[in-house]
């Protein structure tokens, strides 16, 4: 008992402001430029076909990207003494369904006056997303301060937070959970598997990304997204829910 009290007094507040910045080696979104030939080599090594090239330009589908760094590596092998492609050391921002809507850092500031109840659904994940989701409730991120709560049943939830590529063995569970959600409802595809569905390729056991089975409102990139990126996504979702309630 004394140790419990001692730690409570000693530890004080652990909760931090949310920051999207990562460590020096953190593999976030890609920036920089390179010649068309080099870009083609980058696209060729992408294991999830997220890297697309047209001429001297490239686009990356962050819904699919697993942030493995192979494109940056391929670029570094071709380009010597030039900058080429690099990772930004920060989280990728959520992708919303209504294109044109941009998620700004400002959503972090307006945190009052809304609440969001979330039901997690593992549709076939490797458990990395799930562990990060669990971490959001630790004292450092303390998700509850934003009015976001995880609930035990889809019937109590405003939003389904789907992780993992939807497997054949879980397709029905996903459909039924979605149907059990009361209106207005949202679906978030969290992580490269649920958002892009390319992580393991197309197999006999896989249906694909979450939006192949249920309508998805927003996508959170990352493999897995860090708790900070998930919180950004949840706050954006709370705003979307507010709009839907009007």
């Amino acid at each position, binding site marked *: 008992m004394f140790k419990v009290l001692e*730690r409570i007094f000693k530890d004080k507040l652990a909760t931090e402001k949310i920051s999207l910045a990562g460590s020096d080696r953190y*593999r976030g979104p890609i920036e920089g430029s390179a010649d068309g030939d080099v870009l083609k080599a980058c696209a060729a090594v992408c294991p999830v076909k997220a890297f697309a090239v047209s001429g001297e330009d490239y686009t990356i589908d962050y819904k699919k990207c697993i942030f493995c760094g192979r494109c940056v590596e391929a670029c570094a092998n071709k380009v010597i003494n030039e900058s080429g492609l690099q990772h930004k050391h920060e989280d990728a921002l959520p992708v919303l369904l209504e294109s044109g809507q941009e998620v700004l850092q400002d959503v972090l500031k307006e945190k009052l006056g809304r609440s969001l109840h979330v039901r997690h*659904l593992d549709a076939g994940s490797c*458990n990395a997303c799930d562990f990060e989701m669990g971490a959001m*409730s630790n004292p450092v991120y303390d998700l509850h301060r934003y009015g976001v709560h995880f609930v035990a049943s889809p019937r109590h939830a405003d939003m389904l937070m789907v992780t993992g590529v939807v*497997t054949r*063995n*879980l397709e029905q569970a996903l459909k039924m959970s979605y149907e059990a959600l009361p209106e207005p409802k949202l679906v978030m595809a969290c992580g490269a598997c649920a958002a892009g569905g390319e992580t393991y390729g197309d*197999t006999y056991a896989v249906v694909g990304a979450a939006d192949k089975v249920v309508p998805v409102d927003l996508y959170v990139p990352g493999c897995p997204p860090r708790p900070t990126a998930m919180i950004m996504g949840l706050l954006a979702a709370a705003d979307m829910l507010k709009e839907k309630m009007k």
Partner: protein
Amino acid sequence: MMTTIMPEAILMAAEKMSAGGKHPLTAMFGRDETANGVGYVIYCFFEIPENKTVDGFKVVFNSNGSLEYDSITHIIPAAAWYEREIKDMFGLVPKGHPDLRPLVLHETFPEDFFPLRKNVKVNAKVRGERQFKVRTAKGEGLFEVPVGPIHAGIIEPGHFRFSQAGEAMLQLDAKLFYTHRGIEKTVEGKTPYEALPIVERICGACSVSNTWSFCQAVEKAVSVKVTRRAEIIRTLLMELERITNHVGDIGNIPAGVGFNPAISLGGRLKEKLMRLNESVAGNRFLRGMIIPGGVSMDITPELCELIHQVMDEVADGVEDMSTMFHEQENFQNRIQTTGIVRSQTAIDLAMVGVGARASGYSHDSRCDFSYGVYDELDFKPYTKTMGDVAARLLVRIGELSASFEMVDKLIELLNDCGEQELSVAMEYIEGSGWGISESARGSNFQYVALDGDGRIDRLFVRSASYANWPALPIAVQGDIIPDFPLINKSFELCYACIDR
């Protein structure tokens, strides 16, 4: 070279190989070698601790012969799941098996669909119906409690059916493999390097272990030896993954009884470790570091300094958590004598890792095999004999202190290592090999066979959780149902690892 036998001889061969249980069954899996004119094959691997190796035999089924064989489950209970999986994946039927329900493929797959046969396309989208009957106990006053696959908390999917006699759990039947993604099929035809991002994503919590076993198997297949610096870094990464998982687990077990101060402290400590992992590898799950042929990045002196610093803070926190557990009588009351696995059960089921060691079965691949630089680390498996939740908690705490010491020693070895080379070039040629590493949950075994073009012909993954899952339904018998989350957390088995 492995001995080749005919299906009729399997019982005799298995009995001889297991030497009365002295050599636990490591793995049993099928392979389609019809293209080479051989037929379907079952590989059986047993651990031979006295030689620090695995050995076994191949059972060959001629292409036009019978696809049945005598089940070995009644002499080696650990074979039960393997035989069911081989039936699902290859259609080889173990006669006399006590439970021939499907294991991996659920109701939406047709009966005659065997995905790991080479004539089945990787993206075959066949639908059908197969039966899966959940097992329940019947009798006056008994009732059932169905739970899952979608659970109330943030955990992985599995269906549990409890047969209850009042509050006491009489029987538990678990239907698993919901997150089966067909990983072993999807990597076929890829080079080991192409398959690596997928292997790293078999399971989040065991990324290092899965990747290390895979790379060992590949390196064995093509006879490549990695540099000493790479071996030290790999060992260090493995211990970081173990510490991260063990700290997460000792912070999560109290969640089974709502002991909040301990949960919070555990959460803080784990977050420190996850951030350390990010600084080391560029992501919080230590992915992308281990590659076939070595490691991709060095652990710089600055990082070593950071590791030291975080280890000190975490070690301090773990010691306090241990004191908290010890002082909290009602917590002790809940964890002692709860969820017992007897020593003989652990041996019979060929359990591994924390689950085995908490039941007095000293099984630790770091000592039983020779890999990485564990031989230089002078350490003994940490065991307890009670086999209850408390024992599994204490084993983790004991192993944490051993791992903190190992990390210190490994950093010293890294500083003393003159060699700077991180990896050696790999040329993929035909061959096969196995790899083993001790994850936070226990030994992780993988088998890789490369074809003439150096592409993967067969990958088999047997994670630690695969060996330990069958012990859970035994551990819960007689305990009350509110203790189930506690018992379950004390094993902390991955679903993603076994489902693949």
